């Protein structure tokens, strides 16, 4: 097999050594050449000194899910040398710093030694520069080995350091010295290489958290209250960054927004709830541990019917778990967050573009439904750059602030009842504090109340209110994003349901299965509660595989419980080792579930190779 524009390259570095920027430079350069890339940052929960990896899948075909096996390893970290070597596929490449002699046990791979340290030290004096330019240098070598357009890379450097000529010059020197060495000593480009393409089209390269933060700006969010936690931190920071660009009052230089770093997650969501109650659009972002801490407040917002938007950037659980690994394991905790009978609306974005769209959607839904909306992203989506469709907004569509009565409307009505189901859709009308001198004031409370927001201990009334909340939840089914169907849903007897980041490997997995003569209809779930289409898809297929990245098949449980389907028909396809699930693993597990004995072995192999990382 040729590896033109189709391979996986991995960089093994030491955390805090400044490699991230060089690695990003490489990924962006490939993208600039028009080839879709899927970079993945595999970092430790540490600031300096531990192993860290940067894995880039390059695929003109657009196969951007993670894939087992490394075609080229840039091994810069002695600590992880052995495991890095082992991860290379037979026939793959090893790029290393040949300044130091190394034992290389494998004879089934190509080794490319470039004396990076020596080359760099010849030109640079300051220790910091020597360290940093070593990273830049291996990118230089790669431009030669992979036949990359050097001009593109130079332009990027020029752009990045615009105005800092010395910086530009030294960077390009560092690139060139290693590039020249490579051109001289190896016959470049290798069979594994990059060729300019238009496969990437007009797509952009952006992190899910940045897209979500930007979405909040375009959704008109004005208050963000948050507490730092990986991997959600960059969402709040992106919101603030974009606001500082787009939301400063020209005249006064003052801010048309407020970002508060709260003292903890309870306070963060409390502030968001207070602000929404008062008519501003406010949100918070967190990860697993924060979800647990916010659950009391989520119950209050559900029952008092206060809109609030919450981003859960999921990471490896339970407890503090694997803070720098990805999972989809907060599904149940979020769907039923808080004690008592509660149910929450969840959105499942699959790529940064959807993070942007769903951020906007979330605020409209929150105001429309007067309840918490939880956007379920994860570390893989939130903290990695993704090749994605350009961001777009429909300018004709304004904010939907939902059912809010202003002074004029209040004057028209006889008696205002905060929790009256006037329209029969389970959604009552609200007013903002200060709206009217005499009418429309009400007392929000987490205690049982009647339709006029008065405290009551009358069980029958409370039952009535609780039933209406269910009615509202049914209305939600008609408002949330509908599922997306793959393979034109062309009536196969079996289906495959997935959501969020499991979407990335699915197309490729379907191809692998097709090779094995297995055809499945696919459905990408985009929201909870499940709309009619979801139930129909489940009913329409004898067997449905449910792909998710957690141990307990949480989405499957939700589907069974809410759609009333026989669990026997929903087959869990699970991956929860903290790394994004691969197409291969999905295909193998599906085969295994279908008793295709042969693949079981492969499955094991895959799982093992997988685990090796």
């Amino acid at each position, binding site marked *: 097999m040729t590896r033109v524009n189709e391979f996986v390259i991995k960089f093994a570095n030491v955390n805090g050594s400044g490699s991230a920027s060089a690695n990003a430079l490489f990924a962006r350069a490939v993208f600039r050449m028009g080839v879709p890339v899927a970079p993945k940052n595999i970092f430790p929960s540490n600031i300096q000194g531990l192993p860290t990896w940067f894995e880039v899948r390059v695929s003109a075909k657009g196969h951007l899910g993670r894939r087992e096996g490394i075609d080229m390893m840039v091994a810069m970290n002695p600590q992880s040398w052995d495991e890095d070597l082992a991860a290379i596929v037979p026939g793959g490449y090893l790029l290393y710093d040949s300044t130091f002699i190394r034992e290389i046990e494998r004879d089934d791979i190509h080794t490319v030694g470039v004396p990076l340290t020596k080359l760099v030290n010849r030109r640079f004096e300051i220790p910091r520069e020597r360290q940093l330019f070593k990273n830049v240098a291996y990118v230089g070598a790669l431009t030669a080995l992979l036949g990359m357009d050097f001009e593109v890379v130079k332009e990027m450097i020029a752009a990045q350091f615009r105005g800092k000529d010395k910086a530009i010059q030294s960077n390009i020197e560092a690139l060139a010295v290693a590039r020249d060495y490579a051109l001289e000593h190896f016959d470049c480009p290798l069979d594994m290489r990059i060729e300019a393409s238009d496969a990437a089209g007009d797509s952009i390269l952006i992190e899910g958290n940045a897209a979500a933060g930007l979405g909040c700006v375009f959704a008109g969010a004005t208050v963000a209250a948050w507490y730092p936690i990986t991997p959600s931190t960059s969402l709040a920071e992106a919101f603030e960054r974009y606001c500082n660009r787009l939301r400063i009052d020209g005249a006064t230089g003052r801010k048309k927004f407020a970002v508060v770093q709260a003292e903890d997650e309870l306070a963060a969501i409390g502030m968001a709830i207070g602000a929404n109650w008062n008519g501003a659009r406010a949100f918070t972002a967190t990860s697993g541990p924060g979800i647990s801490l916010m659950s009391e407040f989520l119950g209050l917002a559900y029952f008092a019917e206060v809109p609030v938007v919450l981003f859960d950037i999921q990471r490896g659980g339970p407890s503090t778990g694997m803070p720098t690994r990805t999972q989809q394991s907060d599904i149940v905790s979020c769907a039923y967050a808080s004690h008592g009978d509660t149910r929450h609306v969840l959105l499942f974005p699959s790529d940064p573009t959807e993070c942007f769209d769903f951020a906007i959607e979330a605020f409209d839904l929150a105001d429309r439904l007067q309840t918490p909306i939880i956007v379920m992203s994860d570390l893989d989506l939130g903290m990695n750059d993704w090749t994605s469709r350009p961001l777009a907004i429909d*300018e004709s569509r304004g904010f939907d602030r939902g059912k809010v009565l202003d002074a004029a409307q209040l004057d028209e009505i006889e008696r205002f009842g905060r929790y009256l189901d006037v329209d029969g859709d389970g959604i009552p009308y609200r007013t903002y*504090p200060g709206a009217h001198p005499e009418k429309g004031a009400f007392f929000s409370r987490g205690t049982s109340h009647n339709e006029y927001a008065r405290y009551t201990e009358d069980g029958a009334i409370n039952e009535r209110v609780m039933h209406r909340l269910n009615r509202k939840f049914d209305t939600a089914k008609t408002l949330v994003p509908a599922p997306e169907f793959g393979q034109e849903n062309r009536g196969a007897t079996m289906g495959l349901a997935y959501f969020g980041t499991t979407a990335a490997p699915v197309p490729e997995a379907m191809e692998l299965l097709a090779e094995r003569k297995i055809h499945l209809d696919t459905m990408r779930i985009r929201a909870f509660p499940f709309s009619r289409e979801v139930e129909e898809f489940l009913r329409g297929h004898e067997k449905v595989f449910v792909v998710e990245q957690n141990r307990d098949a949480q989405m499957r449980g939700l589907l069974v419980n809410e759609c009333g389907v026989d669990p026997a028909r929903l087959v869990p396809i699970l991956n929860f080792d903290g790394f994004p699930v691969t197409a291969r693993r999905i295909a193998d597990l599906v085969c295994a579930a279908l008793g295709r004995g042969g693949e079981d072995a492969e499955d094991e192999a895959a799982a093992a190779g997988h685990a090796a990382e």
Partner: protein
Amino acid sequence: MTYLAKPKFHHPRLPRNALGLTRRDYEGTMSTLCAGCGHDSVSAAIVEACFELDLPAHKVAKMSGIGCSSKTPTYFLSRSHGFNSVHGRMPSVATGANLANSELKYIGVSGDGDSASIGLGQFAHAVRRQVDMLYVVENNGTYGLTKGQFSATNDRVSVGRKGQRNAFDAIDLAVLAIQLGASFVARGFSGDKEQLVPMMKAALSHKGFALIDVISPCVTFNNHTGSTKSFEFVRDREHSVVETDYVPLREEIVASYAEGTVIEVELHDRGRVRLRKLDAAYDPTDAAGAVRHIMERQEEGEVVTGLLYLDTGDSELKEKLEMVETPLNALGEAELRPGAAALERINASLR
């Protein structure tokens, strides 16, 4: 203490304020608290203060946590929106509301359990952020609504009683607030309207975080005599048929005394609290001095009342965050949403 104007003399025949509103317009629904509960006196003081300040009731937001004290916002200003949040978390909800609309006045009502135990962290950080609000703690040294457990605040009433010292040091929220940089810190007594009403008016006129720690006796659970056990102790001294669920109808406790003097108030359970009213000589602008004074008087078994600390120099949250004048909730789509063009520029920068 220019803020502490003497209360206006109310002419019986002129019960309307500048807005043409009567006190009734500032009242709430009927209280369901125990007869004689100090909290009801505090609600009355809030009504009086808002009436006298000619506040448009609908421009006030009432925030609270959970507890007998936190129930009171339903008993005043029925024309104001209110938010009875969850136990100990009112400060964060008030902070958020405050960020959304700086044009409303915020009155937070909390209890000593609500603010000194479960809510201590949020209380401290709301102070630190200088959230522009009046924060009233109705401090009775006990958990009223859950029937009289000991709270973490200073058990003033037990002072001087023999052998009944609380094993745990008490938390003085006023001292804490001064430490944490509150710009207005006062202490009052529910039974002393003459001091409380002007104090409330001053706090409501102050920009920034204003704390009023109101000693507001719980007439039903005289726990301040030390742990729930003392409850039986007291009961045994009463007529034997008194049962834990029996709540005698009590009279409101009132106290009136002059600046610079000390008064000893007798409470329903025959407990006492010695209140010292600050005199004009006291300098409320010296934080360290204020703390020292309160601590020293405390040693003498006295509870200092009055305006303890005032800092007109510090800026409130909205200023600290450099927010625009317009309330955020009043900004429309035009001001908030960058156009498609801006988005296209961002897309371009990501290619």
